[in-house]
């Protein structure tokens, strides 16, 4: 039991790396913020573009969504980070993580929202248009709020998964929380920095999970 405390809960070791871990946590939060914003915004935009029903454009969106859902995000990040330099395009790890994870979130958001949009009753569209609203006004104030409510539970799930995936950025050399903890673990020969990082992740994620649980409860007809 003593060896457990010494190797996993060693405050002396953690103390040495607190500045690094905090710096890592800040990068994790920045990654999450950027990815969630751009992923949700572009996913919503894609769903709206799909509403216009241009056949070729919809096919492109459909293929993008399916590919982004089928491939492991880590695979996509590795292709972007190690493959694109062969084209002379060298992106840093932070940019790769942001672009890939935002694109994957956009795909899932588009898919969910599109399903939600097609479920909103036709009468809602007709009524909104007949009061004189433009297409964008109708979408923004009448249809989208209803569609978002229909898919809020799975969307929250996806937001949580995306935030957790920021840890993948450690693979493409972004000094975020996991990467910092892993380095500290290597230097100190002690697993306590990983324990500290775990607590850091739980501090970010648990509130999101509890909120998601609340919404799932509320949505499910019981």
């Amino acid at each position: 039991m003593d060896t457990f405390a010494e190797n996993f809960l060693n405050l002396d070791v953690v103390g040495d790396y607190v500045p690094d871990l905090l710096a890592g946590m800040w990068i994790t939060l920045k990654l999450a913020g950027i990815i969630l914003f751009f992923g949700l915004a572009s996913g919503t935009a894609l769903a709206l573009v799909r509403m216009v029903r241009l056949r070729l454009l919809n096919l492109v969106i459909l293929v993008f969504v399916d590919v982004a859902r089928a491939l492991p995000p880590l695979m996509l990040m590795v292709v972007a980070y190690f493959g694109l330099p062969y084209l002379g395009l060298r992106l840093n790890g932070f940019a790769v993580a942001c672009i890939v994870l935002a694109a994957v979130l956009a795909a899932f958001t588009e898919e969910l929202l599109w399903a939600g949009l097609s479920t909103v009753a036709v009468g809602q569209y007709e009524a909104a248009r007949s009061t004189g609203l433009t297409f964008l006004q109708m979408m923004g104030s009448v249809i989208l709020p209803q569609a978002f409510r229909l898919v809020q539970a799975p969307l929250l799930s996806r937001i949580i998964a995306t935030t957790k995936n920021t840890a993948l950025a450690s693979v493409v050399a972004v000094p975020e929380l996991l990467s910092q903890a892993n380095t500290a673990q290597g230097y100190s020969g002690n697993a306590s920095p990983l324990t500290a990082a775990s607590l850091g992740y739980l501090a970010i994620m648990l509130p999101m999970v509890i909120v998601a649980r609340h919404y799932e409860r509320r949505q499910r007809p019981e």
Partner: protein
Amino acid sequence: MNEFAATFFNLEILERVWPLLLHGLTMTAFLSLMIVPMGLAVGLLVALLQSPRAGLRRWAMVAYVDLFRAYPPLVLLIYVYYGLPFFGINTDAFWSVVLALTLNTSAYFAEVFRAGIKGIPSGQIQAARATGLGGGQTMLYIVLPQAVRNMLPDLLSNMLESIKLTSLASVVTLPELLRAARLAQGNSLNATPLIAAALLYLAFLWPLVRLTTRLERRMLAAR
């Protein structure tokens, strides 16, 4: 354009690294065949233990599900892989991956099972019990068969996610598909192996994505 093809779709290089990629694909398939069934089994167990009456037990199961939904699987994997040796347990990469991903996946499956079981009207259970079936029999013959139909889209999409998660094994140097592709890319100084690996993933997982989308649509339309 030719240079592009030579860098990303180089058949000569593909031929050379193909055995390595195939080996990686086999490992990915093997990992998936371990993790998906184990995740399903543990998930079902957790959901069954979560019966609404039992106070402490129910609380413990909710904590299990929330904990692993909140904990990034890569962090869990690294913790298991680098942490367990401090206990004197010599974990190899393979079992670390199986343990970490089963814990993660089972929490998601548990949530799906819990919701599915709850969705069965209590009249069904009362009727089954009234005919003399025991609790276990009622679950096995009456509740689960009906629940599985409703849960199918969620079960499938969780399976898809579990299979994609096996790519994390590359981080602890287990030579699955992604790791094999990285090694091949390093050896050949060419991006073709990465593209080939992505296409292999796509070949196996795209049908699953299509099926999931279709079932999800049907469920949403039925509501």
